[in-house]
């Protein structure tokens, strides 16, 4: 009963020892680690891409050997999709969701730390393999039978199968944590229809992960079994089916695209209202569109297999469902345009540039998407640079642009310093122009027959000219991102101080200091509207509502009801511990050990088991607190 007996919250030992870094569980520390690690992978994968376009710049070049090229495009695709795009969204969610909903922590901070270690270890394992020339080389979707033991002997594809199945633990853990945090830990009064749109998008994505990642995990484990212990799931001579891999993979793979895109929609819906100084036009339709996209994206996967054997009925169904996704996407585009149009005071900041630049790129990517969802068209351009151009418009234009915008928007909150606006706009223009030069041209090259995934081509095919243009564009893109990187380094040391709310934005993350204090909020805010900091602009808010006083002890936060956000309980969240790291090491031994000796699998699993018991063991202190 005596709350004063509660130990202070050691989410992170303030002494800067190595042990403190290894035991940290604070959601801001962990979130920042996800973000930084994901950007590091982005830079790595981007450098691979620049090397690839250099190889393709002219016919018959020899910058990369065929084997190296295969590893490069596979690692570029894998890193971008699995180790950059999804993790960066989860990382931002882990960092900002508690701040945006007025909580002091995420649910299960230790599990959260565990998720990060798994993510880091699986990505690092792949990149070590690349440096040793042994990285996966069968493409990011790794089709069987090419990726089976017969056609891809050697450790390369083993690492694909093991790393991806291991990584999925991290994604699932983060998704579960985010769902529970959003459902149970919102500030009192933040009913579900007052949640910021970004939080909604993270919620939708977390639910998608729960349904999309297990099939992928299953597929990669089955592939690992095929390769390591000789099962026959995907091996035709033994009665297996290579189509099964395609189904399992794309059942995950299509939603994956929206797992990347929906948070980007949430970001645009956050940035535009702030700089237009009005609420988002059509909160309800925008949120509903995201939910609908999340659900329907599970009914589209077969459109990746139009070039395989399919019945006409199946093709028609999946073509129609794929095209219908354009409707909820269109609804959002109109909402964004209307928000800018009716804004009261436009402020053309760098973040605003990146968010607005996203709109045309996303529309172009969407239009080519509708084009390839028609099977006859798809047969024509399947596996050409047209498709490469299409998905870069969606992925880079539709997702990375808002993301960089969000970096400019949230960097002041994370560091307490502003990013340089001039450099931000320069970076935007370089990237935007370079991107269109590089990738618009690829539509043309693809129409003229240039296949993807070839390490070179012969003279006289007419591809050298456009590929040279693509190379120039790609280099400008590289320069554009480099400007932002430099900006980050300069500004975090000497940028202008930001203050609590430099953009005069309306959501709760701006109600605390920059960077946020360890416990986020001194007392838990009570919420009466969608933009709690915009009392004047919000009609339905009367005055500053009273806040909920909890002891100035950041281990305690508020638990509220799922729909209405009514106060239910006080939650005491767990504190720093070394066990998440130990458990992740146990998992690493179990997964990668399989390549050395199968005995390491139970060995690693036992380490993980012991550590999870120690981690959850009700400590003596804790027992006292709880009784």
């Amino acid at each position, binding site marked *: 009963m005596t*709350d004063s007996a509660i130990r202070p919250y050691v989410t992170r030992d303030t002494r800067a020892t190595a042990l403190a870094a290894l035991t940290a569980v604070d959601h801001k520390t962990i979130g920042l680690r996800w973000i930084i690690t994901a950007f590091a992978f982005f830079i790595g994968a981007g450098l691979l891409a620049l090397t690839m376009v250099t190889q393709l710049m002219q016919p018959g070049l020899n910058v990369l050997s065929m084997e190296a090229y295969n590893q490069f495009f596979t690692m570029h695709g894998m890193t971008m999709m699995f180790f950059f795009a999804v993790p960066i969204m989860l990382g931002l969610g882990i960092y900002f969701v508690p701040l945006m909903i007025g909580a002091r922590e995420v*649910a*299960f901070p230790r599990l959260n730390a565990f998720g990060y270690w798994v993510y880091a270890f699986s990505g690092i394992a792949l990149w070590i393999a690349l440096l040793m020339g042994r990285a996966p080389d069968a493409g990011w979707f790794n089709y069987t039978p090419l990726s089976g033991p017969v056609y891809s002997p050697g450790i390369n594809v083993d690492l694909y199968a093991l790393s991806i199945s291991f990584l999925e633990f991290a994604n699932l853990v983060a998704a*579960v944590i985010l*769902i*529970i945090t959003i459902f*149970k*830990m919102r500030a009192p009064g933040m009913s579900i229809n007052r949640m910021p749109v970004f939080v909604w998008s993270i919620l939708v994505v977390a639910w998608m992960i*729960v349904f999309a990642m*297990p*099939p992928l*995990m*299953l597929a990669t484990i*089955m592939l690992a*079994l*095929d390769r390591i*212990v*000789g*099962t*026959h*799931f995907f*091996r035709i001579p*033994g*009665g*297996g*089916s290579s*189509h*099964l891999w395609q189904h*399992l993979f794309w059942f995950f793979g299509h939603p994956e695209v929206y797992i990347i895109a929906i948070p980007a929609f949430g970001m645009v819906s956050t940035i535009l209202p702030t700089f237009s100084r009005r609420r988002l036009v059509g909160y309800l339709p925008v949120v509903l569109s995201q939910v609908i996209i999340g659900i329907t994206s599970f009914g589209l996967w077969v459109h990746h297999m139009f070039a395989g054997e399919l019945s006409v009925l199946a093709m028609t169904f999946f073509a129609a469902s794929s095209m219908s996704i354009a409707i909820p996407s269109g609804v959002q585009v109109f909402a964004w345009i209307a928000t800018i149009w009716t804004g009261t005071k436009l402020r053309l900041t760098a973040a605003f540039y990146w968010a607005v630049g996203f709109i045309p790129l996303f529309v172009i990517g969407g239009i080519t998407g509708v084009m390839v969802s028609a099977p006859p068209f798809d047969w024509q351009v399947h596996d050409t640079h047209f498709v490469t151009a299409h998905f870069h418009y969606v992925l880079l234009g539709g997702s990375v642009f808002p993301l960089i915008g969000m970096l400019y928007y949230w960097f002041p909150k994370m560091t307490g310093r502003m990013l340089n606006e001039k450099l931000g706009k320069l970076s935007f223009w370089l990237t935007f122009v370079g991107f269109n030069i590089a990738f618009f041209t690829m539509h043309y090259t693809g129409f003229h027959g240039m296949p993807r995934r070839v390490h070179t081509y012969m003279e006289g095919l007419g591809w050298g000219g456009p590929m040279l243009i693509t190379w120039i564009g790609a280099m400008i893109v590289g320069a554009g991102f480099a400007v932002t990187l430099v900006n980050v380094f300069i500004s975090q040391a000497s940028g202008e101080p930001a203050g*609590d*709310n430099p953009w005069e934005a309306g959501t709760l993350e701006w*109600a605390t200091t920059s960077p946020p204090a360890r416990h986020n909020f001194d007392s838990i*805010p*009570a919420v009466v509207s969608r933009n*709690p900091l915009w*009392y004047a602009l919000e009609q339905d808010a009367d005055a*500053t*509502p*009273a*806040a*909920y*006083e909890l*002891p100035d002890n950041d281990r*305690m936060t*508020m*638990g509220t*009801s799922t729909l209405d956000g009514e*106060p*239910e*309980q*006080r*939650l*005491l969240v767990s504190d720093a511990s070394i066990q998440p790291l130990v458990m992740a090491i146990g998992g690493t031994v179990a997964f990668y050990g399989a390549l050395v000796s199968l005995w390491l699998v139970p060995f690693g699993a036992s380490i993980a*088991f012991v550590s999870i018991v120690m981690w959850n*063991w*009700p400590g003596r202190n804790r*027992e006292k*607190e*709880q*009784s």
Partner: protein
Amino acid sequence: MSVEAQRTRPGAMDLPLNANDQSAPLWWGMILLILIEVVLFTGLIVSYFYLRFYAPEWPLGGISRPDLLLPSISAVLLFASSAPMYWADSSIKKGNVRNLKIGLILSLLLGIAFLVLKGIEYFGYDYNWATNAYGSITWTIAGFHSAHVISVCLKVAVVFTAATAGYFSEERNLGVRINGLYWHFVVVIWVPLFFTLYLSHYVF
């Protein structure tokens, strides 16, 4: 302009600390874990039927369809194990630690009996996972489920130890109950798996 206004609302400290009911994050965590597992097992079942419907014959390669006797006995034992677990849960809700421990032990024994019979059954077959795709999918499903039974048995052992150390009471028993929930899940999921692995041969 900060929401941490001067005025504060009293009464937050009167709310319960870490509720012992279904509003607890821990409860939600268990529900989501089970949901993820359901998706995984569904994937396995779908893969089974996918392979089956594209196969020229099933089981492949002249393997005979499985005999029902031994699998049925082990299934009955597994299903039975839910009863003492349920009893254990309701005992601790009334604060009865002794009955909790008896219930846990009974379930544990039934779970181990199931595992032993599964072992006898599978190692008695003349094919294994490397024989053909039929062997691969059946061994994987059975192995994956058995791995769940093993881990939930380990979990029960941990809960048993914690109960002996006096950690659970009438007010504090969420840990026991989510463990029970997981146990019931591992039991119930065997129904569709049993149908897939055994009965479906006789149905169509």
